[in-house]
């Protein structure tokens, strides 16, 4: 594998780091494991002074294009006047949602430490009185927008969705065997809409750990508000 491949890896969340108005940012994805060439606008990411003040409500517009050797999702422009109002918690304004997705078995059953991370983050948000900005969505409706993901995805699928792009980049690095993307939605409700699905896993045949598995249903506190009742009903 050539060094070129590295250039394209997981720079998809680069858009999240900018708060300068009117900046063009490419989001590059490797869908084909051996892209012939990829260009990365590193300069666009190089000055990240505003990184931590990134407002989660930043509005980005994106369009997709694809080529035969590699599929790229690309070019997002940040609109300056939309940015100026981005600090307000106005839920009517469209927001960008970032996600990683994989089949439910991997996300909720195999990946034991995933649970610990979500609990840790929720605990931290509680300590800091921070509003929750990440959710687990079972069979999310937004997947319909991503045929390139769904054709590779085992079902039922589970997505980890957040308005915090860099955190999703981190989760992609951690989980690795997941697909990452982002989309825009007019409201939280729209972004987290899901198709009702029953999730059940068989007990592992061979369990040699000196402790028992996390209880099925551990994910319920992380489901979007509203869907918890559905699960119970």
């Amino acid at each position, binding site marked *: 594998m050539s060094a070129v491949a590295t250039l394209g890896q997981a720079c998809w969340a680069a858009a999240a*780091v900018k708060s300068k108005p009117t900046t063009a940012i490419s989001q590059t994805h490797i869908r084909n494991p051996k892209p012939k060439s990829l260009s990365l606008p590193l300069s666009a990411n190089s000055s990240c002074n505003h990184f931590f003040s990134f407002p989660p409500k930043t509005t980005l517009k994106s369009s997709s294009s694809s080529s035969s050797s590699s599929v790229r999702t690309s070019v997002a422009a940040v609109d300056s006047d939309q940015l100026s109002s981005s600090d307000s918690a106005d839920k009517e304004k469209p927001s960008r949602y970032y996600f990683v997705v994989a089949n439910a078995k991997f996300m909720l059953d195999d990946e034991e430490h995933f649970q610990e991370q979500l609990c*840790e*983050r929720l605990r931290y948000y509680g300590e800091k009185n921070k509003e929750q900005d990440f959710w687990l969505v079972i069979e999310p409706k937004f997947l319909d927008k991503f045929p390139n993901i769904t054709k590779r995805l085992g079902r039922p699928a589970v997505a980890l969705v957040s308005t915090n792009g860099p955190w999703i980049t981190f989760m992609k690095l951690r989980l690795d065997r997941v697909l990452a993307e982002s989309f825009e939605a007019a409201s939280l409700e729209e972004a987290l809409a899901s198709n009702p699905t029953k999730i059940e896993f068989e007990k592992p045949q061979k369990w*040699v750990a000196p402790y028992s598995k996390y209880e099925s249903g551990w994910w319920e506190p992380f489901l979007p508000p509203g869907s918890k009742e559905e699960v119970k009903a």
Partner: protein
Amino acid sequence: METLFNTEINKKLNEAEFEALLQEFKTDYNQTHFVRNKEFKEAADKLQGPLRQIFVEFLERSCTAEFSGFLLYKELGRRLKIMKMNLLQKTNPVVAEIFSLMSRDEARHAGFLNKGLSDFNLALDLGFLTKARKYTFFKPKFIFYATYLSEKIGYWRYITIYRHLKENPEYQCYPIFNYFENWCQDENRHGDFFSALMKAQPQFLNDWKAKLWSRFFCLSVYVTMYLNDCQRTAFYEGIGLNTKEFDMHVIIETNRTTARIFPAVLDVENPEFKRKLDRMVEINQKLIAVGESDDIPVVKNLKRIPIVAALASELLAAYLMPPIESGSVDFADFETQLVY
């Protein structure tokens, strides 16, 4: 090291991943986690007999390990910052800052363990460790592979002990284990940082040499842990664990995690791998017995030769077992095996 983090030479440093890691480290989930209570001293006073000695040794070893991590990360962070200040090199400030934040975590862990030692009326002289430490600078790739593995294996050891004790509280003889769940998340994140560093250096991941090194480091780390722990079964049994089962679980999980970045890993789930480890334990015991015998040094050395040869041959056989091709999805040319 200089060229690795030089933003002009190495343009491949994935900014988004490093920025994301920096945000994660700055979040500092465990800022208020390491607070002691009076249960520590009470529990320490109750620990008597051989288990007390074993506990002290465990605390010393853990404290030294965490403190070594602190020194290493602190030094690397410092060096990168100096290069930056000299303006001769455009090193990546994000990488330097992450090293500093990781040294913060390690210092916190070492300090917490050292306070634990004070419950036993002991303290490690960490200042002495700092001065006595010999800085042997390995080639970066050796640091990357080895440190990645030691962080991830550290995570699996701590979480396994934590979850086991949570279910079996009767073995919870000292409250430090209650802190392990949050504590080991730090170790796991440190491992992720090395993952990102290696991804930024594809030469560490993409050729036959990288595969040989990956297998070599996996084997060294797993064997070292297995042999060490098998000499200290009293500790693991003292907290209600079967040492070999505990170690195999940790090895298998660490190997699965490692397979998401290393281009090749060992087939540790093959029962033959464990048989080899067990034979190494037996050979190692013979080696220790020779050392403890009353023979004169020359005789000891002569007796050691065949034993060392036997150990080496087991190691080589384990190394040459058919490996498992692996690696990050971002580099993957083995799509069919992947889970999405």
